[in-house]
């Protein structure tokens, strides 16, 4: 009998394993690899565009070519017979899939470079070994992977990251300063970079990276819902302008959203990001808060603005009922993209790249977007304050390993080649990011994109987050407190403020200026 029982148990376990295995196989996320290796299929048109850049004079191109050839032949002297291959490793991330040209452009650039090298008979070939990470890999995981790889001496030569990490990366010696390079090739392309972006890549007076893209974070709104609320077309059209003038404040947004919810037109008044990030700092900026003191090189905590911001979030959830209490631990599709693109949420605090994501994912067509969705600056917190937006330029850095492997020069060449108005415009248009070069705005692709043209004015109101090694602590503490304010009614704004201040002081000490 006991044997039989054992037999049943074994059979049961085997069946269980088979069922479990089968379910596991079926449940495994399909076609969502953590990394996407982009093949170097290059449309001929692009190659042509690159070989004859409209913005650059032939003289400049020649200079660049000559310099590159000199550098490469110096790094890898020509050998008879077999061409010598120099491999450059590059890591980039979306995490939104449409941003794939952050990597693809390197393949295009390498192809151009190789055609020059071949034509000149240098016997050297540049090969790109690149990775483009997309969701489910998020920023945190991507960065962690880099730090671990760097400790093992296996980090890539070129590493794309958010500009706010430069302080940390520079301080800990992961990356190299690029001032000499930028000076050397200033006239090739760097003179053309939109000046404010240089602020984002500087830390302690040095340039540590080259901007890759930037963006604005608009407050999107559903025009169709406003129409149902009885707004005229003129009123809808005037809405972004009123926000720009500061006539509509964050509390007005709550009132409008509440009206839409009360009338049963939408399920949610406003959706914002569902994970930690930087978007919600715009609310604080809208209430007149400051994040960075450039002169003292310190982060700033404006007490009055944080008090008002915490009060606003608490009111939005618990008084007006326009944000759900679990928004900060929600799901991107079900709590952000879905409700807004289906017209079940009136406002969406998003970013320009979301437009790219919605259209490329098929959540909205270009036409539906144009007809039903409007976008404005993030409103001022109260009368007398200014509307805002926040930019988070992504940047290419060159790592210590590139120096160790003797390929830093070539890595910089490649970055110089992709910092091209036409190549960058492909990325900008496909992923709805904003131009980093003045001449890029004139690029035919870019100029034809009505959305990018219409959001461009927002950059006048933009702010960056601080390039400080301890910025991650600031961000983490704010996120936890905001999540608590939204998720727990009994966590009053006063209690939240005390906690926030204490935690910031404890974690940041001298690195932060506390102002009234």
């Amino acid at each position, binding site marked *: 009998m006991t044997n039989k029982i054992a037999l049943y148990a074994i059979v049961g376990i085997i069946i269980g394993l088979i069922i479990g295995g089968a379910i596991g196989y079926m449940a495994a996320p399909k076609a969502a690899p953590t990394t996407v290796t982009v093949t170097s299929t290059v449309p001929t048109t692009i190659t042509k565009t690159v070989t004859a850049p409209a913005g650059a004079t032939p003289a400049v191109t020649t200079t660049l070519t000559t310099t590159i050839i000199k550098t490469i032949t110096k790094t890898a002297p020509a050998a008879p017979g077999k061409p010598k291959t120099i491999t450059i490793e590059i890591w980039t991330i979306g995490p939104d899939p449409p941003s794939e040209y952050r990597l693809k452009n390197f393949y295009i650039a390498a192809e151009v470079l190789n055609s020059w090298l071949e034509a000149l008979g240098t016997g050297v070939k540049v090969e790109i070994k690149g990775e483009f990470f997309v969701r489910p890999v998020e920023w945190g995981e991507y960065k*962690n992977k880099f730090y671990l790889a760097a400790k093992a001496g296996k980090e890539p030569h070129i590493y794309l990251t958010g500009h706010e990490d430069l302080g940390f990366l520079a301080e800990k010696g992961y990356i190299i300063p690029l001032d000499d390079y930028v000076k050397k090739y200033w006239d090739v392309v760097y003179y053309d970079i939109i000046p404010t972006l240089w602020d984002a890549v500087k830390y302690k007076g040095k340039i540590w990276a080259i901007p890759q893209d930037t963006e604005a974070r608009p407050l999107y709104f559903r025009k169709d819902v406003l129409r149902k609320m009885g707004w005229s077309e003129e009123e809808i059209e005037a809405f972004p302008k009123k926000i720009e003038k500061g006539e509509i404040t964050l509390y007005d947004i709550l009132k409008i959203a509440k009206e839409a919810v009360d009338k049963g037109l939408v399920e949610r008044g406003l959706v914002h990001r569902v994970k930690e990030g930087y978007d919600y700092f715009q609310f604080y900026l809208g209430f007149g808060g400051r994040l960075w003191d450039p002169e003292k090189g310190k982060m700033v905590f404006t007490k009055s603005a944080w008090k008002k911001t915490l009060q606003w979030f608490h009111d939005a959830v618990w008084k007006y009922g326009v944000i759900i209490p679990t928004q900060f631990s929600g799901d991107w599709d079900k709590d952000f993209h879905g409700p807004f693109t289906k017209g079940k949420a009136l406002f969406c605090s998003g970013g320009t790249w979301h437009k790219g994501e919605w259209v490329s994912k098929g959540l909205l067509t270009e036409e539906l977007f144009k007809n039903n969705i409007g976008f404005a600056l993030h409103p001022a917190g109260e009368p007398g304050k200014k509307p805002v937006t926040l930019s988070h330029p992504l940047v290419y850095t060159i790592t210590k390993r590139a120096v160790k492997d003797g390929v830093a020069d070539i890595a910089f060449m490649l970055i110089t080649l992709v910092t091209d108005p036409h190549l960058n415009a492909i990325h900008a248009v496909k992923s709805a990011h904003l131009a980093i070069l003045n001449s890029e705005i004139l690029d035919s692709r870019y100029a034809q994109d009505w959305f990018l043209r219409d959001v461009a004015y927002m950059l006048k109101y933009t702010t960056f987050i601080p390039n400080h090694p301890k910025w*991650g602590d600031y961000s983490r503490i704010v996120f936890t407190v905001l999540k608590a304010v939204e*998720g727990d009614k009994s966590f009053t704004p006063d209690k939240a403020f005390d906690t926030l201040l204490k935690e910031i002081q404890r974690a940041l000490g001298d690195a932060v200026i506390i102002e009234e």
Partner: protein
Amino acid sequence: MQRTRRTKVRLGALWAFLLPSLMLIGLFFFVPVILTFLISLTDMDYSFEWNWVGLANYIRILTDPWVPKILSNTFFYVSVTLTCFNVGLALVLAIATTHINEKVGATIRAIWLLPRITPPAVYALLWLWATRREASSLFNWVLGLFGLPPINWKLTYPWLIVILVNGFVGTSFGMIIFTAALKSIPSDIIWSAKVDGASTFQVIRHIELPLIKWPLLFVTAYQTLSLLTSFEYILLTTGGGPGFYTTEVWALYAYDLAFRQYGGTAYFGYGASLAVFLVIIGIIASVTYLKVFRFRELMIEPKIEVK
């Protein structure tokens, strides 16, 4: 002379057999514990620098504004899961399946092993599917049969999901131990009780339960420690949410601080100190169990006769 040589050989053999496992224990248990403790005395982040900060991380635990919430969550999670499932349901199942037809009983026990042998990620995913907010999900489909509206389970009853998910996995361990213990109770004791006119309930209450007291205490102690340090199913289902730390337990909090940071900022030092704290709680709980429930007696003298 002969004897000494033989002793030496025996000792040598003893060491040869013991050494591999001692090395494994040393390498994979003691070294990590010592390393974790050392890291907890630093403010290490992704630069992996050993900046010694003394007991600062431990002082931070005492002043951390979120610790009271995390602690009460952990207490709630451990006590409810333990009482309702890992010990409670395990006992009910063991008793029930040993009192019915043995084939049926064995089959039921085999089925209860399924959650344990399913890979955690798959198992968690199945639960997420079953409790989806859509009307077509398993839970909501059942509600629909009674004409009830669908519920967003994860949002409305996160603790229910966390406890069910962990409980269904945890039940099997106790169930097996209790079944083995129940089966080793000599049948003549039960027969004589039956002859004396005892009902099944009386047999359970007055014979079986007192005789499996020691396994009961062992499972309680073991599962308390196991639940204290477990977080993977919570991570995979609610992720500590919804909202603000609703289902965040101590072990998950330590994991989150050390590894799940948006900006790549890692609190290895603080996370390690939280882990060490958990080890301390575990040791205190173990010693308490040993003293209060007199485990030594369990080890020395078998309380159950072996057939």
